[in-house]
């Protein structure tokens, strides 16, 4: 049984978003004609995380980053890979560069301009486990398990320089950015908003208690979704410096692990239910669309207009695979 918890402050914004969504996006139609998914391919693992950037895919399996050619989405090809000495917890792709948060190794910057032979351009060791990274211009923000949020100057990728850090009360879990704004989360419950266009030491412009134990954050224009603690927590970012808490959603099994946002649609990797899809085009009435029940627990998900790449695996960093699902 899905449950939606509504915040009263959210209602006027939801109505605006709903009107926008209905007039500008076809998403609302999906509720009437929900898409289903057919598996059209597989990418062998090990596989833990996946990101898509144009016709390229970036697959993380344990300590290894692999570049994929997705020009034929149903038949991805592995091009090249780069391995770190430690586990990769999160990546961000910016053009021909992949920024990797690699546990105690720190931040690794990988040049993928030659996808058949990715190479390390630079790295910096950080105090704790690097859990994920976001980029604002030439500044990398790393969610660091020990120090909170580390601010790294990567203008010279060969020699990243740590400028400062901001302590997060709990364990830093994830960080994401959009424009000059960055949003960091920690467990058990913090959401911190940073405006990198401001001069001076990095300080949050807003912070608040959020979903229980969020593990990851995903952004799209005007929306943020936090995943963790058995639920999805939606935020309205129409005022980027003042996120407004929106609906709290539970997947049927209550085991969402990661998600990705494509417009107003949230694709959720759920440990028990596989792919879950939530339509937020009418945010006041979020609806679950048909998903895809995977044979193994889902770990991560990436999506394009036509395809969904669902990372699945039972246990262990050394296994797992990606299911290529086509929207029918």
């Amino acid at each position, binding site marked *: 049984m899905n449950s939606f918890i509504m915040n009263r402050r959210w209602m006027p914004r939801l109505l605006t978003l709903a009107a926008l969504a209905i007039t500008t996006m076809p998403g609302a139609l999906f509720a009437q004609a929900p898409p289903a998914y057919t598996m059209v391919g597989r990418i062998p693992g090990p596989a833990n995380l996946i990101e898509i950037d144009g016709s390229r895919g970036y697959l993380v399996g344990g300590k290894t980053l692999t570049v994929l050619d997705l020009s034929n989405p149903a038949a991805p090809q592995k091009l090249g890979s780069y391995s770190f000495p430690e586990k990769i917890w999160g990546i961000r792709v910016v053009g021909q560069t992949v920024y990797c948060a690699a*546990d105690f190794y720190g931040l690794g910057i990988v040049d993928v301009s030659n996808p058949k032979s990715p190479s390390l351009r630079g790295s910096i060791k950080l105090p704790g486990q690097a859990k994920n990274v976001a980029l604002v211009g030439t500044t990398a923000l790393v969610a660091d398990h020990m120090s*909170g949020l580390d601010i790294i100057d990567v203008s010279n990728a060969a020699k990243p320089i740590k400028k400062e850090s901001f302590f997060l009360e709990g364990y830093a879990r994830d960080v994401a950015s959009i424009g000059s704004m960055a949003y960091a989360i920690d467990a058990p419950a913090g959401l911190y908003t940073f405006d990198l266009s401001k001069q001076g030491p990095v300080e949050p412009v807003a912070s608040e208690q959020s979903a229980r134990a969020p593990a990851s954050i995903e952004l799209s224009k005007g929306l943020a979704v936090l995943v963790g603690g058995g639920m999805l927590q939606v935020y309205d970012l129409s005022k980027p410096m003042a996120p407004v808490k929106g609906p709290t959603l539970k997947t049927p099994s209550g085991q969402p692990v990661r998600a990705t946002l494509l417009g107003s649609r949230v694709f959720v990797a759920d440990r028990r239910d596989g792919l879950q899809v939530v339509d937020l085009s009418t945010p006041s009435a979020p609806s679950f669309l048909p998903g895809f029940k995977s044979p193994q627990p889902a770990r991560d998900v990436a999506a394009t207009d036509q395809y969904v790449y669902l990372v699945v695996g039972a246990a262990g960093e050394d296994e797992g695979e990606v299911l290529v699902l086509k929207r029918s």
Partner: protein
Amino acid sequence: MRRAALLTCGLLLAISGISAQQAQWPQFRGPNAGVIPDDPALPDTWSETQNIVWKTPIPGLGWSSPIVWDDHIFLTTAISDANEKPPAPGLYDEHDHVKAAGPQRWVVYDVEFNTGRIRWQRELKHGLPPLLRHVKNSYASETAVTDGERVYVYFGTIGLITALDFKGNVVWSKEITPLNTQVELGTGSSPALYKDRLIVVHDNATQSEIMALDKTTGKEIWRIDRDETGNWSTPLVWENDVRTEIITTGTRRVRSYDLDGKLLWELRGMSSLTIPSPFSKFGLVYISSGYPGGELRPVYAVRPGARGDISLKEGETSNEYIAWHQPFLGTYNTSALVYGNYYYTLLDRGFLMCHDARTGKQIYGRQRISPESGGYTASPWAYNGRIFLLSEDGDTFVVQAGPEYKIIGKNTLDQMPLATPAVLRGSIIMRTQSNLYRIARQGRP
């Protein structure tokens, strides 16, 4: 007559000088929860090449703290037959639950205080540990305790409690069932001594209990079940104006027992993992826990004489028995320090905070000790107006005590330490991953 008076005066001064020194260090954090009487002979600076009286390699891995009685330094270790993955500093997740690579030998060491020579070592057991542990924990993390006649050791991982005399002979030994703590992190609660009794808290995910043993025979005097899932905190026998009671902290409840094991009071509202040990000062007992990933990280200062459930009700910050409370001041591994009028909090991720010990009012907020320093597990200690903060990188930062935060020194050793040092007789006895040091001003014998 005048000469006799002078002699008497000199003798008194000499006695006074001696008694001002910490003479023995019989338990985890010593007799005063890390506060050492001022002693100008104690060192302020040291390094691998400065003020090291001796350095003795200790095989295996053990995060138990050294204890000292006269010329005996006791410590425990677990020596693996295989190559174990070394511990890494810092706080981390998904590196938990390591299994021993091979059988271990659980060994007690007696090291000479004056020379660093190993006087004896006694192997108590050899075999595969039945429990998993956190990669940063060891199979010998419980600190021994001594009454000057025997040394009492507890290895929670194998459920072994043993008393040895000062020659290394086993006086008695008792086995209890080793059981996993929640999320299989290993064990770490040290035993406590009070008069004729040895108090052992055996909290785990299956059958938690506290027991009082006759220290001369090991015979069980009483044993009480506890509704807990695993804690790493050392019990405190609190002699206060009202009575003597046994304070145990725990994730589900803080509990106080009388000396016969009868429950006196309890308190809800702790963190999801409870490690810091309770201690007393100013007639209060200080209780805390603070898993960084948990929703609660409380500190409570509790008055004596409580009965029943003294938990704070919603919206309360104090009550008849809770003098003050801070909801987010608790630490994960380190225990706090009360020195002078101040309550110092050493956050595991490298910050120091200061509060009024009597009221809980903040004196200064979070101060980053060093941008370069990693984690902190050893508890802070203090003497001569200085507070000492030992990082997992081997750096000891020296901070001036008082209402203003100021770092006044940094002393570096080469290895990772997690154990809290013993400080007495002008010396610091510091344990790192594989060495034991005696640190003292150069020129001391």
